[in-house]
């Protein structure tokens, strides 16, 4: 499958950048002519992943979050969100609904939302080295397109 376009965004882990990251990805994905629902779901998934970096990867300071997106010829998008932060000891546990180490202003539903709103989600993490979340979603080809 051919990569038709790609982008890379590096942002410091400040919460004000959550909105910027999801909007930037949404703008980029617009090339695939997604429905509003598809676009909103991707924005929510990106928001969850970036928030995880801010809350969990760099709890005591500011680090770099790298957001990459690639568009493919089959009208799918792959989005990866990587940090060089604390890492996750137990990825399976972290992905369980309602599990959080983030305090009571977090719901523990971040990974559940990412899973619900994308086709595939993979999480690679090494304690002390960082985490990379990769999501993939096929955008529907609408009647009359192409």
């Amino acid at each position, binding site marked *: 499958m051919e990569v038709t376009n790609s982008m890379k965004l590096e942002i410091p882990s400040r*919460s*004000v950048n*959550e*909105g910027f990251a*999801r909007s930037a990805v949404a703008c980029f994905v617009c090339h695939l002519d997604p429905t509003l*629902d598809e676009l*909103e*779901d991707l*924005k*929510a998934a990106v*928001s*969850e992943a970036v*928030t995880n970096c*801010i*809350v969990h990867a760099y709890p005591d300071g500011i680090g770099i979050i790298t957001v990459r997106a690639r568009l493919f010829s089959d009208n799918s998008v792959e989005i990866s969100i990587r940090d060089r932060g604390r890492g996750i000891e137990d990825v399976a546990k972290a992905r369980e*609904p309602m599990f959080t180490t983030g305090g*009571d*202003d*977090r*719901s523990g*539903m*971040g990974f*559940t*939302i990412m899973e*619900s*709103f994308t086709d595939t989600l993979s999480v690679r993490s090494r304690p002390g080295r960082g985490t990379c979340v990769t999501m993939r979603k096929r955008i529907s080809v609408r009647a009359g397109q192409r």
Partner: protein
Amino acid sequence: MDLDMTITERKMTVRILGELDHHAARCMIRRIEEFIDAHLPRDCVLDMAGLTFMDSSGIAVILRTQKRMNEIGGRTWVENVPPQPMRVLDASGIDRIIRITSQN
């Protein structure tokens, strides 16, 4: 994000406007709890009609509000949820523990 909070005959209405993410949620939770503590309402309605984006941070706002209202013996529900926030709430299964109605 903006919050508009009013109280009429011990019924508190919280209108959440704009985008509700982690950045907005931390300040929002504090303001809602301060308002509850100041007015001790019997009912609290979270009106989501003005919400343009929500991620799972919104779930935490709802649950924290419900927890504080439970502590003072009050009731909480969520009204007028637009389609995108509704999909987030549906995915979370939170409707099993709090009454939620979508936007007409």
